[in-house]
């Protein structure tokens, strides 16, 4: 099993993802420079958080033109795993690998804090080791995390179980107060129809140690590692 962590100019959570995969998931991992075009040999690619291209024009809008993104699309089409976190989620939406878009937070501020997420679908490769409706404590850190999509897209996301995480309160209730950025229907993370591509605004790589306040992010990475293993078997 081998993970790759993409590095765009301005990625700044690349080291954090690398650290979690190598130390806490215990799997081999490489950094992949954005000009690289060959992803053979990898089982999963992490599109990490940060400010690729300084968020110029629009968050994720320029990164999608990086040479590596063509390879990422092919990689996803082969059914391999592509996991976008924060800026990575924005890039995957811009690249058309996930539907919808991420707009400015409704309070117009950057927001960094721990939030609660409810696992809406545990029948995905990223959540299949987590009990359904479990509440995870995972931090967010973004200015553009307000998920929007048209009604038709929203309906198909719902029907196909593509909404994977929703912001909730500590009891798992989906409330307006627990929505930190104005996202439609409290959406925090979605997957594609085939469920091999996941994007989420919260940072599970920041929640893999007691010392940092939460371990809950590990469950996502462990589910993914398990799914890769199952696929190989």
């Amino acid at each position, binding site marked *: 099993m081998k993970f790759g962590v993409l590095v765009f*100019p*301005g990625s*700044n*959570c690349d*080291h*954090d993802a690398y*650290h*979690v995969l190598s130390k806490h998931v215990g799997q081999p991992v490489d950094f992949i420079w954005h000009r690289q075009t060959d992803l053979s040999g990898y089982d999963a690619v992490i599109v990490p*958080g*940060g*400010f690729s*291209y*300084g*968020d*110029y024009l629009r968050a994720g809008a320029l990164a999608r033109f990086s040479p590596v993104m063509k390879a990422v699309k092919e990689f996803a089409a082969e059914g391999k795993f592509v996991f976008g976190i924060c800026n990575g989620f924005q890039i995957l939406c811009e690249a058309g690998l996930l539907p919808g878009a991420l707009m400015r937070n409704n309070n117009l*501020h*950057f*927001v*960094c*804090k*721990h939030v609660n997420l409810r696992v809406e679908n545990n029948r995905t490769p990223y959540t299949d080791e987590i009990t359904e409706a479990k509440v995870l*404590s995972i*931090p967010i*850190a973004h*200015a553009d995390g307000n998920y929007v999509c048209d009604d038709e897209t929203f309906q198909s996301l719902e029907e196909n179980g593509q909404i994977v995480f929703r912001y909730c309160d500590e009891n798992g209730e989906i409330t307006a107060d627990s929505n930190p950025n104005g996202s439609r229907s409290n959406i925090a993370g979605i997957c594609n129809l085939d469920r091999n591509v996941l994007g989420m605004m919260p*940072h599970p*790589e*920041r929640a*893999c*140690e007691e*010392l*940092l*306040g*939460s371990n809950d992010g590990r469950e996502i990475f462990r589910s993914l590692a398990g799914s890769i293993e199952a696929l190989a078997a």
Partner: protein
Amino acid sequence: MTSPAITPELIEQHVTPEEYGKIIEILGREPNFTELGIFSVMWSEHCSYKSSRVHLRRLPTAGERVIVPPGENAGVVDIGDDWCVAFKVESHNHPSFIEPFQGAATGVGGILRDVFTMGARPIAAMNSLRFGPLAPNEKGATTRKIANRNKSILKGVVEGIGFYGNCFGVPTVGGEVVFDEAYNLNPLVNAFALGLVRKDQIFFGKASGIGNPVLYVGAKTGRDGIHGATMASAEFDDEALEKRPTVQVGDPFLEKLLLEACLEAMRSGAIEGIQDMGAAGLTSSSVEMADRAGTGLELDLTLVPQRETGMTAYEMLLSESQERMLIVAKAGRERELVEIFNKWDLDAVVIGKVVEGNRLKVIHHGELMADLPVDKLTDEAPRYERPMEAPAYASVGRDERAAKWKARAQEARHGERDLLQVLETLLSSPDICSKHWVYEQYDHMVRTNTAILPGADAAVVRVKETRRAISMCLDGNGLYSAVDPLEGAKLTVSEAARNNVCVGATPIAVTNCLNFASPERPKIMWAFSQTIDGMKAACETFDTPVISGNVSFYNETDGDGVLPTPTIGMVGLLEDVRKLVTQGFKKKGDVIALLGTTNDDLSVSEYSQAVLGISTNELIEIGSVPALDLTLEKTVQETCLKLADEMLIASAHDCSDGGLAIAIAECCFSSLNNAPDGAALELSSNGLDPEAVLFSESPSRIVISFSPENADSVASVAEEMGCPFEVIGKVEGDDLKISIDGSEVLNAPVAALEMKWKHALESLLEA
């Protein structure tokens, strides 16, 4: 292009008549326009420390852990296992008043470059911020219009810090936000950064090796920030806002690329010396690098990457365009460096070479534009022993002050004493209330090392490569320093050390940012000198040498200056991150105790200001700062450290602003993974008023809690250390209940208190 002729007006815009005389003496001729520009920035207060140098040398700068003392871009201390941390705090006050967003952003950018220039990857940032009040004060100088401007300055500064730090990818883990009318027209923005570097991979700003090529790397040069250093070396008047073009514009994305490229270039082994182009840009970086190595430099400005056309030598030398570095490469290896920078889409161009001798020669379009002796620009810069004079109020003794304050307090306190109302007023005072509105706009978790979230006594980041963690805090107290600069500085350093101790870390070194009004006023210079003496005494007590820092004078507008405000950045070391301590109570039934003693230190306090409404100016005349005994302070701190090291305590919290009642309330409040707790305290008055018992700001006090099983061990550690120790209550229920000498004086649900504390700042900002 012909340079302007040197006229008396032109001279006056650049240097004083005496300084001009000295220039002629040095050169044996008149300088040309470009040379005059170079002298003016190198001899500016900001670059030359001409008013402060004679005092700064009294500070202790040596110590076992000190690897790089002051004088480089940042100081460096050893943290063990061949790892070091580089850190520094620097002001960006003047630009942040003129243009809050960019001023604060480029302040962060500058300090980050100072740190990674040393070869250290920045792993934490903090900010110390001071503004005028957010609400109008009918009796004071803050009109509605000024209060509104203060709000917009605060919002701009916070947004600017977030904009830069978040994009760059450094966690902003702590700091302070303080309000006083003295900062109405002079906000203070002090930015701190800390980086991690291996002991054998530290880089220096030295232009050594005759014949080595000089590379310009990073962003292109434009006309922004010309004379920024000079602007920061003068007071403001009502035309201040016209100085906006002297404020630089920051690009954190470019800085992030510059960081990665520099660290990669450093690993290549092709770099001889490197320095950030900060204040006074290309001029100060080249002069300082040559000066440190005792060499000369020849630069050809025609080769400098430019983003504007028709720039003159003067403009290029004085530009403060951001995100640029000057590198001296090992001869023959410049190509490798250029390739690394190009990989990161950055310019890297050879613009000159290191030469024998001591002269800086600047060529532009084939013409020699400046030819100056390097050492004369630095060592021979003017040094002033400015006149000093103690203000009249400084000679009024403590007893006389105490009597005056008592009478004034009596007058301000009318009717029944409602201690709950006092507590609520203090909890929602802008100085004390939660600053989550501010720090949630900063990414404080990136790099996954943040072991204590912002809002605590000190921030803690663990060092992944070791078992260790670094603690850090920024502390200043303009009010204490205004009333008594000597004691104020000691109190500030003591509190900074105590804050580190409260998280279980041993304080190891200090960086300082000294924010003062005009040094040309003898009373300001007196306060500055007193501050240095106080800082020296306290730093020696805690064995925390000063390894870097910055002086910011001329923080005044139309003759109104800031309070003397030394900001202390104290860094501590936790040998084992698993032993870190946090401030919140952990478990019902735990015992609450106080290390240290409460005295009658109510006069210069949040209580005096926020509750009694006594102004800063009045307090300067009639107040007394809390009495500090450095030996006792040291004992209290060592006791707390021993308790933390032996893992006997569940929590520790510094007892300072707002006094014991505020400290206890903060220990009760919720935190991540911890629901709020109640507490029942039984205090004895020892002859003090209830207000003094609850709100006195006596230093050298720490609130601790521990499991009842550890009670005997804790008490015996305190006894063995000779530390005043008193059990004052226990963690129980959901309410804060306090009785004094057996009668209840306060009883309130913690949840309601927490709501007031938590939402005070945002309701002021949104009003």
